[in-house]
């Protein structure tokens, strides 16, 4: 079965707005969580990641929130910009085993 699930295939937001991307995972042994960003015709690149020993990590306009009991993590983007338009893939895995599983992705469009 699918280890990591993103429920929203697409999302549209006005420039300057706040948005939340969600991700659920199945394996409660996962201890590493990440968000990757993918532009069309490009490879995914790491945006932000967090280990399970914290429930939040902030990097500029991007914040990851982790809810281990709910097996859920999210990406919050503030002051959204047109260049945020991309596909966002969540990933989770067990850092000690190096295995990482990805969600299907959420296509984000930021309207100027």
């Amino acid at each position, binding site marked *: 079965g*699918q280890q*990591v699930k*993103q429920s929203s295939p697409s999302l549209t937001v006005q420039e300057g707005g706040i948005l939340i991307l969600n991700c659920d995972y199945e394996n409660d042994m996962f*201890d*590493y969580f990440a968000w*990757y960003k993918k532009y069309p015709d*490009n*490879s*995914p*690149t*790491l945006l932000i*990641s967090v*280990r399970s020993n914290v429930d939040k990590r902030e990097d500029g306009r991007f914040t990851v929130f982790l809810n281990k009991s709910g097996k859920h993590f999210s990406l919050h983007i503030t002051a959204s910009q047109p260049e945020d338009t991309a596909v966002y*893939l969540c*990933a989770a895995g067990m*850092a*000690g*085993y*190096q*295995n*990482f*599983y*990805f*969600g*299907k*992705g959420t296509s984000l469009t930021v309207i100027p």
Partner: protein
Amino acid sequence: DTTVKQNPRYKLARVGKPVNLICSQTMNHDTMYWYQKKPNQAPKLLLFYYDKILNREADTFEKFQSSRPNNSFCSLYIGSAGLEYSAMYLCASSWTGGAPNTGQLYFGEGSKLTVL
């Protein structure tokens, strides 16, 4: 240079024929991954090498082979291609240094396989 290179970029294969996809990286990363990506589906982890140790996912164990003759190079081999193998194959690498991997995965541009 943080480039992961994949060859070929496009591959056309006949049903029942073998397919060999190649990935290389010059970052001295110790871990290399292969993912299969089909339209509207999540990238599916097929296998990964940590150094010389191959780890294959249970549900794809018998379908894919791989080799890593040196640190920079990793191949994905399909012995007998079926229509269901048509997909984009993404290679990625990462540096763990022997510690739990919280490092970034660097992806190649992918090899698009079409099986006819």
